[in-house]
């Protein structure tokens, strides 16, 4: 169990940081002519840009850990898929939203929170569907092999 948690964290940190880095680079190219690790409202909080980047990296690592650890919920076999999905959704949405607000990715306000939640839901459903389709593909491949025996 501890080993699984350790492995999840070990995978979550680099993935989170890499995603954060790539996204912040993309946004910086698109909207500014210099590097911003996060929104201007976030970086304005800090004395020097160096601190803004360090804290951003920390937040990205934490975000990676949130998703890596919550994915372990899907390994609880005695729970129904519905229960696993519901718990995983909450276990990932709540901490991630807190981190996103800390990183000032969107302004704190109900309207902004609502559109953020809609986007989050959309991505969540899309990912759940892709896992489902992958399972379907897997089953078809295995059945094909079984029929050929």
């Amino acid at each position: 169990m501890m080993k699984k948690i350790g492995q999840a964290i070990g995978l979550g940190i680099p993935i989170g940081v890499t995603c954060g880095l790539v996204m912040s680079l993309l946004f910086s190219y698109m909207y500014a002519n210099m590097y911003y690790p996060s929104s201007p409202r976030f970086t304005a909080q800090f004395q020097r840009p160096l601190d803004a980047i360090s804290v951003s990296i920390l937040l990205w690592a934490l975000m990676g850990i949130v998703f890596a650890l919550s994915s372990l919920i899907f390994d609880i076999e005695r729970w129904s898929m519905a229960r696993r999905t519901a718990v995983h959704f909450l276990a990932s949405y709540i901490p991630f939203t807190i981190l996103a607000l800390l990183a000032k990715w969107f302004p704190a306000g109900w309207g902004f929170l609502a559109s953020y939640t809609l986007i989050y839901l959309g991505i969540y459903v899309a990912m759940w569907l892709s896992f489902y389709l992958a399972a379907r593909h897997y089953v078809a491949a295995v059945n094909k092999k079984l029929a050929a025996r």
Partner: protein
Amino acid sequence: MKIELHIDPNVAPEHADVYVQALTPPLQTALDQLGQVDQQWWGYQDKQIIPLDLRHLSLIRASDDTVTAYRVGGGPVQLRERLYQLEAALPSNFIRVSKGEIVNGDSIDHLSVGLNGLINIAMQDGQVAMVSRRYMRSLKERLGL
């Protein structure tokens, strides 16, 4: 295959060392059989102790405190061994598919996906097992994909 056989009543434990260039399916079959020559599996039912023929086992399932083996054309029996011990000692056609289930790969009828996204294995004798995410890849490999 050049075979050297050494018979000595004092050798213990009995063992075989095989030197090959590659592991092929026929060799794997021969090794499975070799591994089972001194291995007799026993099932427990009520007060009876029943010798088991592995070819007739479709599924082995572990619940909280018992390990149950399902026999084709017979009733379920309890096993004394734990799942991890079985996983190590059973021949290669027995595949771990989830935290609590080992299936006989030769007795799999087909797989299916439920609307909930869970993958089920339908055994030839009607038993149903579940493939968990963790074991998807190894099941595919063991079946030769």
